[in-house]
């Protein structure tokens, strides 16, 4: 089972993002579970949403405490205590930011990929909604689910101009990152561990 936590601010489509991931999992014949953690339901307030993907029905309904991936819709949230809590040792962070991945990785000492999702969205959609661009990058980086499935579930959710622009946006967003970089993350981390081990001996 893969667990994902989404951090964002009220109004950034956090719950929609979580639902879209779970719907894409369903499209691919897997099981998806997505739910919000509502705090104060105000625009701009920090909010979370949780996603689980598995090959069998998902039983537990507790919050995701030890995610393999964090999707962060607002870079400023990374400064809030608790946002990166519980991230697995080889866990990865995808963030909407105009800074480079290297800068944020160095700040957090974690593996971070940054893409200017809100900027891209502003150009394509006319609104700085980072969620679908981040999802495209996430699907492409991890290879967990395909961009075709993302397009499919967007078609369930949106229509007309909003749909067309989102389809254009996810294509552009996916080009911002190296596809498959986070694929087979376990074997990568094993290689890294071996490399560290080799240097120390």
């Amino acid at each position, binding site marked *: 089972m893969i667990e994902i936590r989404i951090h964002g601010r009220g109004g950034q489509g956090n*719950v929609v993002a*979580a*639902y879209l991931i*779970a*719907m894409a*999992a*369903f*499209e691919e014949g897997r*099981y*998806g*579970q*997505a*739910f*919000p953690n*509502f705090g104060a339901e105000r625009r701009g307030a920090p909010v979370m949403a949780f996603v689980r993907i598995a090959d069998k*029905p*998902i*039983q*537990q*309904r*507790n*919050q995701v*405490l030890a995610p393999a991936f964090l999707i962060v819709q607002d870079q400023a949230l990374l400064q809030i205590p608790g946002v990166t809590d519980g991230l697995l040792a080889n866990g990865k962070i995808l963030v909407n930011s105009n800074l480079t991945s290297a800068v944020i990785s160095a700040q957090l000492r974690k593996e971070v990929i940054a893409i200017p999702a809100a900027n891209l969205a502003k150009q394509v959609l006319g609104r700085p909604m980072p969620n679908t661009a981040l999802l495209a990058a996430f699907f492409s980086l991890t290879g967990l689910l395909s961009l075709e499935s993302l397009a499919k579930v967007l078609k369930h959710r949106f229509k007309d101009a909003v749909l067309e622009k989102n389809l254009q946006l996810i294509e552009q967003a996916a080009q911002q990152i190296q596809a498959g970089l986070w694929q087979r993350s376990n074997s990568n981390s094993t290689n890294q561990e071996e490399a560290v081990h080799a240097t120390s001996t």
Partner: protein
Amino acid sequence: MLQALEGSQAVAQAVALCRPQVIAAYPITPQTHIVENISKLVADGKLQCEFVSVESEFSAASLVLGAAIAGSRAYTATSSQGLLLMAEVLFNIAGLRVPMVMTCANRAISSPLSIWNDQQDSMSMRDCGWIQLHCADNQEAVDTTIQAYLIAERTELPVMVCMDGFTLTHTLETIDIPTSKQVDSYLPPYQFSRTLDPRNPITLGTCVAPEFYSEARHSQHQALLKAQAEIVAVDQEWLALTGRQMGGLLTVEGPAEAKVAILSIGSVIGTLRAALEEIPPPQPVKLIKLRAYRPFPMDALKVACEGLEEVIVLERAISPGLGGIVGLEVLAALSELPNPPRVHNFAAGLGGRDIPLTILPRLLSALNNEETASRRFSVIDVELAKLPMEDR
């Protein structure tokens, strides 16, 4: 058909499949999405039904009461304060023995104000005379909603379908929505034996003097008790139709030789199931899912607990000044066994506090802790350090 749906959306579809004729509701978090989705089905012409927006839950309940007595299949949904505002009418609906279905998206009660999930709302309406069925997941919420109409109309009793607010209502997951053909073959058109008819006038809800009040209450109690058989039968018929069953009054899972069982109600069952797999306990443990809370299945519970030494009851509400609500009822039922197991009673997850997988080892270790084992009841996830000394 299998679909990835939000719980509320799925329940709205299940209600629509039952072809309700009158719906009245007032929005309240976390129930709102259910009636919002239904009103959309009505507006889109996908559901032929009178949808009445009312100014309060009191009116919602009153309106569906009138509609059901006048011969319409009726539905409403609410949560928390909304359920409390309905209280007076809920007793009337049950006392008049009017069949209808309501969804209670379980939520905490003020004060302090909390919009989040626990089961204090439906528990506080325990004695209003409605059948109360609890759902462990959204599939159960869908299937139980449909079953509820059949139970209600066969027993002439109202049914409250309880589903955990947010934890179920706002969770998107894979749900099998039955076809309208299936539901139509399962649920015949609404018929109520005492439908108001101007050609044959009768009086309902009249003042009953002491000569007959006790008889009215006795027969209401008997009707609820007898409904147990119908709850089981209706689930069996659903199994024959869809291949799914929701567990009748209660279900027992786990190894037959287990001497310890955890009994709970609602969506925490899934978390406990996952915990049993992820954090295997040293001793075999059974899991008892209580589905029917009213009528309370005394006999089924005794059968389920025969041979057990320890029963841990985990619940999501409190009776202040007493302790657990379900726990005490379980204790009462099991006291009739020749060798009754010890009953340990805990509340957790009040006002939306997350219940993590580690609840399982925590519950089990309480068995060996003399202090907690001797206490009848405690809120197991309370953080006492947050409280002043005198309140600990």
